[in-house]
């Protein structure tokens, strides 16, 4: 005890002696920076990991990129500006592998033609090519990685998870995607797509990267568990039978009103015409 006290006193004395040295201030600053940086690296949520992909995959991805993507995104994925200062294709530096996996994996990229919004279609590239493209793009700068399958595995979700996912969904998602995930309109011809028939991985990536009009729901906003719960809720809804019968698109009262007029009133007016067309027959006429 006394020894440590003695030692600490001695160190303090030495430090104190050099505290007016010219290099003391920069040294303390450097130390502070090192500690902060090290702690941040150690403790911060790992959103920006870069997996070291092997050189071959990156090279293959680069080759594919130059053929299929560079015309809009630029040869080095730096983005192309239009004359008016808009974006022809945005820069892909730092978007991460998850963004590539979502955009290319759902067929949104490459776009069929420039339009207000990239539409979902059959993917142009196979899984290996998508992986290579993702590796190339993530080699340009750190960004979110493709999530591990354990992160979006809905089988491990309990019913409480599903219920909580529903709460998250109604709070964050229904305003654009509609209560049943049937999609909704956004300004100027853009729209929030429907969420039925979307794979769990792509849902996760969409929340993580915020494609097109969608805001980014980073892991600080919705934790990986929250994301998995939302996906579990949506998947549970897909499994649940339509209790009420034909869902009429699950878009709310507009389609219901249309059906009330076309099916309901249409058939009832038809019945009225039928009843009036069949006039009363008396027994006399039947004999004649």
């Amino acid at each position, binding site marked *: 005890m006394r020894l440590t006290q003695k030692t600490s006193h001695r160190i303090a004395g030495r430090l104190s002696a050099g505290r007016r040295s010219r290099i003391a201030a920069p040294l303390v600053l450097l130390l502070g920076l090192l500690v902060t940086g090290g702690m941040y690296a150690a403790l911060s949520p790992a959103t920006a990991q870069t997996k070291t992909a092997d050189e071959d995959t990156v090279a293959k991805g680069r080759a594919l990129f130059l053929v299929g993507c560079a015309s809009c995104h630029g040869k080095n994925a730096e983005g192309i500006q239009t004359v008016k200062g808009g974006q022809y294709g945005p820069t892909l530096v730092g978007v991460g592998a998850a963004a590539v996996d979502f955009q290319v994996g759902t067929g949104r990229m490459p776009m069929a033609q420039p339009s*207000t919004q990239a539409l979902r279609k059959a993917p142009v590239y196979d899984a290996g090519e998508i992986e290579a493209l993702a590796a190339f793009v993530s080699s340009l700068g750190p960004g979110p990685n493709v999530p591990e399958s354990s992160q979006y595995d809905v089988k491990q979700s309990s*019913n409480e998870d*599903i*219920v909580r996912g*529903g*709460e998250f969904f*109604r*709070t964050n998602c*229904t*305003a*654009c*995607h*509609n*209560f*049943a995930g049937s*999609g*909704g*309109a956004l*300004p*100027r*011809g853009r*729209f*929030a797509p429907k969420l039925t028939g979307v794979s769990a991985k792509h849902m996760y990536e969409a929340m993580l990267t915020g494609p097109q009009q969608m805001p980014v729901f980073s892991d600080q906003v919705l934790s990986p568990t929250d994301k998995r719960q939302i996906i579990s*809720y949506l998947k*549970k*809804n897909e499994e*649940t039978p339509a*209790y*009420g*019968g*034909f869902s*009429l698109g*699950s*878009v*709310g*009262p*507009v*389609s*219901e*009103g*249309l*059906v*009330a*007029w076309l*099916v*309901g*009133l249409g*058939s*009832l*007016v038809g*019945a*009225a*015409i039928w*009843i*009036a*067309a069949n006039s*009363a027959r*008396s027994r*006399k006429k039947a004999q*004649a």
Partner: protein
Amino acid sequence: MTDTIAKSNGKQPAKAGKPSKAGAAATWADDRLGMAGMAKKNLRKVFPDHWSFMLGEIALWSFVVLLLTGVFLTLWFRPSMVEVVYDGSYDQLRGIPMSEAYKSSLDISFDVRAGLLMRQIHHWAAMVFVGSMMIHLLRVYFTGAFRKPRELNWVIGCVLLLLGTLEGFTGYSLPDDLLSGTGLRAADGFMKASPVVGSYMSFFLFGGEFPGSSIIPRLYTAHVLLIPGLLLALIAAHMLLLVYHKHTQWPGPGRTEHNVVGFPMLPVYMAKAGGFFFVVFGVLTLMGGFLSINPVWRFGPYNPAEVTAGSQPDWYMGWPDGALRIMPNWETHLWGITVSWNVMVPILILPPLMLMILISLPFVEAWITGDKREHHLLERPRNAPTRTAVMVALMTFYGLLWAAGGNDIIATHLRLSINQITYFMRGAVFIGPVIAFLITRRWCISLQRHDNETLLHGYESGVIMRDAQGGYSERHLPLPVARAYTLTARDRDQIFVPESEADANGVASPTARKDKVRAALAKYWYGSNIQKPTRAQLEAAHHHAEIEHDHERALENSADGHQFDGRHDVSGEELTTKH
């Protein structure tokens, strides 16, 4: 067919049969209630037969279905905003705190036998109820059935439409799911948009700040007691007036302003109307069974922090919502007060204005035309071109706003821009009705011309004749007499002519200015109409046709094919040789 009327008296004298038990019971009841006389008169009451006269019946029967299913729902629904935790059968919401109203709606849907079916029938019936009232209203207007003496019944009908809409809105708000809560929040905003009294009205209705805990019980009282009571009373008044006025009928041989040609209530209409009730019930049950409506479990409990895309009111509130959606964001700031024209105009001014226009239509028309006569014979829409055009213009206005209310669904499903739809609608709601008015008026007038053509020159037989010079012409055959009678069974329009501005003593008429306006309107109302041909014109046309036929006297033993020479009706005629 007139064959159904007995041609002679029976040959056997009437004999009293064995007194039956039913007869004895009826006599017992009649001795005490004295209903026989009334029943005898009313059970034989005659109603004319036409499909369009049954549209109001759809409304009546769907109202009965609403009462039946509604009573079932009241047995299970709890109009309470007490917070409870859901523990029912629907997995996705289990454990969530919610109001008792929403929980009981979920229980009706999942844990009450046939509850979901009843809920869905009830909701579909409500949609059909308001819709059938509306098409019934259109029928009454287009055929001129609202004219004297039926103006007050028109007013009652309009009030029924308003009450039906309010009843629907209160029902839509009861389950306390996300959609109904959003609707209530909108209603709260509408109230608060009224200057000065807005916030007081809102606090009065909600019992404090929105949403509070009073609104669901209050709406429930209105939904199951107050409005249905008013609806029942007014439906009764509507139908009593119908019986008192007697039903209108289409003109035709034997039909006058003083009789009703048709079938008696018992047994014919008892069977037809009774059968129609089961048809309506059946269709609504099928819809309730197969077509999902308002899946409350998918919306989740109401939470003022949440909203969903596709938040629309039920269809009958869609048009004010559309007006709200396309209204420019206009506000005036005066002495620290904001006047929200953007909400007031589409919600607080437009719908009441439209209702007033609707109610006043019969009175405005009667004033313009100066027609004080009673009308029991209907008019075809083409024979009142301006009237028809007025309603088509109103329908166009309504329809465009209606479509604007679904602008987001139109945008996503037709791949359009919601902004462009909004800009288009802002112009279309003003231009569309004018175009519709002009087209309809001219269309009606040309149909009137066509009627006169067929009266004077006969109907198109479809027989093409080739004459000796090689020219082709279509044969026209004279109309059957009954049809010609029906076409001409209408009055000539009489345009109001004001009396001279000053009387013989030079005293100016006190109503001169009003009369001038009225004369100008009447001239516009009737001015372009085509009047039916006069007797002299008809006779001249028929005479002309006979001479023409004489000129083309058929050959004896004419060749095959000449039976279609257009001198008589071709139905039943066939070629003698098969080709």
